[in-house]
């Protein structure tokens, strides 16, 4: 394997508070040096990164790769390639596959498919309960042994408080987080969008903010009770942010994520019955977006995760009630972060990189997210000034369901390196 010397970029490594124009050396798949004026070892590939930002590869704690079951809309391989194109060097797929990822063979299959793809790393999340039915715990020990890094019944939220308590307690044995899609199923009901003025006008059944907040509150209480690590998926309401803030002050083991779309869109995106604005949790109000941004800034919310949810064109080309929830996000997340959050003055560039690399690595205890010597050689090189227009037809993902079609963004991935190997090269390279 050729060593790689990345020369002259602005290297930002939030894991060690580093931000300086310097060189970065990757040897044998690991970070071997960081500093000014590094010499190129024999046979090294030298990458000119002047004017570019060099950072740890991004890590996405929440994606849906649809394999096995819906290989027509995404596979582990296409998802891992889409991830690399978006600057991600590792992703964590949710277990709501068909069959459900609730046993060691299923986890092993995803790991094997990811190895064959040779793009971004894939760390599976396994199901909390057998078949995600919310009744019997799955075998966390074997799942972790096969490569699972967390458990979640995402897509089928854990309704039973008893089961959630047991999951949080039992997960402590293996020191893994329980990730929950916080939703009271009876309050969600037949809801298809945020309950508010827009749903009233459009005549669509609403999902109140309380449907999420009740389960956030429950999960925080159970994490406090058990000492387990609860990871709250895709937070969407200002009330949730406030609940998490108070729990963190109290010392509860809680981490939380927010998606790029909940940071950049409101329920008004559903106007015209736009099914690419239909997601769960739903897009909410401007005050929620503001609170989520503030929570991400002050650390109440730890990470940005995409909830990348590929769906077939035909599935979204339907009546709003009948279209599935979710959008793809891997290939727009960084551009949205750079444009809306960094250019928009919400986060500094090092803060954005932290929330997308160092912080997710810490939350799920994953390798990566750092440029310290000996860390995995997972690096992303970004042209922070490049302007581009979102064109879903160019996505490496198999699916195109995005509400950002045509949006102009600033900041484009130049190169993605996993374990010292270039797995994605932008057009400019």
């Amino acid at each position, binding site marked *: 394997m050729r060593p790689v010397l990345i020369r002259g970029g602005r290297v930002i490594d939030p894991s060690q508070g580093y931000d300086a124009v310097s060189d970065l050396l990757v040897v044998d798949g690991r970070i071997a040096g960081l500093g000014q004026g590094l010499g190129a070892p024999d046979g090294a590939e030298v990458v000119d990164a002047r004017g570019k930002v060099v950072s740890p590869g991004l890590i996405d704690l929440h994606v849906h790769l649809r394999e096995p079951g819906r290989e027509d809309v995404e596979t582990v391989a296409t998802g891992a390639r889409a991830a690399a194109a978006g600057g991600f060097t590792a992703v964590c797929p949710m277990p709501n596959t068909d069959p459900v990822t609730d046993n060691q063979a299923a986890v092993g299959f995803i790991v094997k498919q990811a190895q064959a793809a040779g793009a971004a790393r894939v760390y599976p999340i396994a199901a909390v309960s057998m078949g995600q039915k919310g009744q019997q715990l799955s075998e966390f020990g074997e799942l972790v042994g096969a490569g699972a890094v967390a458990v979640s019944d995402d897509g089928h939220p854990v309704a039973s408080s008893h089961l959630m308590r047991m999951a949080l307690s039992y997960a402590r044995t293996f020191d893994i987080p329980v990730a929950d899609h916080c939703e009271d199923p009876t309050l969600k009901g037949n809801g298809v969008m945020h*309950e*508010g*003025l827009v*749903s*009233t*006008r*459009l*005549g*669509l*059944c*609403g999902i*109140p903010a309380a449907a999420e907040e009740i389960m956030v509150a429950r999960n925080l209480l159970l994490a406090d009770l058990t000492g387990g690590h609860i990871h709250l998926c895709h937070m969407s309401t200002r009330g949730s942010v406030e609940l998490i803030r108070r729990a963190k002050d109290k010392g509860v083991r809680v981490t939380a994520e927010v998606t790029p779309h909940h940071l950049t869109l409101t329920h008004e995106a559903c106007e*015209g*019955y736009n099914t690419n604005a239909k997601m769960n949790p739903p897009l909410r109000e401007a005050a929620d977006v503001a609170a989520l941004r503030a929570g991400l800034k002050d650390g109440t919310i730890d990470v940005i995760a995409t909830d990348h949810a590929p769906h077939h064109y*035909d599935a979204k*080309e*339907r*009546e*709003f*009630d*009948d279209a599935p929830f979710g959008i793809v996000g891997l290939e727009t997340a960084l551009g949205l972060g750079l444009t809306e959050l960094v250019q928009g003055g919400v986060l500094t560039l090092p803060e954005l990189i932290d929330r997308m690399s160092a912080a997710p690595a810490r939350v799920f205890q994953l390798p990566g997210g750092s440029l310290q010597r000996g860390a995995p050689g997972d690096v992303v090189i970004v042209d922070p000034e490049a302007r581009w227009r979102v064109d879903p037809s160019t996505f490496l993902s198999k699916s195109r369901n995005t509400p950002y079609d045509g949006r102009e963004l600033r900041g484009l991935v130049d190169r993605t390196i996993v374990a010292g190997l270039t797995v994605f090269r932008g057009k400019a390279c």
Partner: protein
Amino acid sequence: MTERFLGKDLLCLEPLTADQIRFILDTAEPFKEVSERTIKKVPTLRGKTIVNLFFEASTRTRISFEFAEKRLSADTVNVAASGSSVEKGETLVDTARNLEAMRIDMVVMRHPSSGAAQFLADRIRSNVVNAGDGTHEHPTQGLLDLLTLRDKFGRIEGLKVCICGDILHSRVARSNIWGLLKLGAQVAVCGPVSLLPLGIEDLGVTVFRRIEDAIQWADALNVLRIQLERMHAGFLPSLREYNRVFGVTVERLEKAPRDLVILHPGPMNRGVEIDSRVADGPHSVILGQVTNGVAVRMAVLYLLAGGRPEMAEAAKGRSGEASE
């Protein structure tokens, strides 16, 4: 005709201007007379093909549209969801495109999903008339209610109209709210809070939680049907209690400072939201609504086909006038 008066479709009243609504109502006036003739037929839409696509059960609205079409001499086809390709899993857009491939001119659609009419209109070239989409809007019902109120009071502006019942699930309520507000009426809603949508006040309507207060305030009540399903879904304890708390009864109306005009979009649950003596009483305009429904729908079809409001009277007499 150089310029379409209404655009391609009639999907909802929310985006219409007061002038557009007023012109539809004015256009309906000359069409009222057609239904009073011995031979109830004018050649206005001769040669036009209209498909009535009903994905939800409907008697009144479907028949009203069909009469409107036939009295304008259009060729009509009725498609119901049951027994059609929809039952075989065909998507809405495929159904519509197949119909369009047979060279139709208009689709009148009733559908259980909010936004379905717009979805269809965005994807086919034919004119689309929304005959009720989910809990969104039912624009021709809103228009016929406006026409009926205007007949009765001679104006809409300044009228106090209260819509009573299940506002949350009512497309009739939404169309009425927009239409009335645009024409300058004062609008209120009254019903159990569990059946009022969030943020309804922000649309510019007053909320009454007690029917007695609504009756004190209003010039007219538009009484909505309470569906049995709402009780099963937990929105209401029982229809019996609904009648006791919210039922529009003679006893309650007698306490009003003035005679209230009573509308109901039908079908009525006598003894639930409205008592028979009210429904059949001297101030009920419920059957007048049904009569006006045909004229309003004739007006809408005529205008969408490219007709001008000021030409409606003349158009009744001659053929070809309404073509684009």
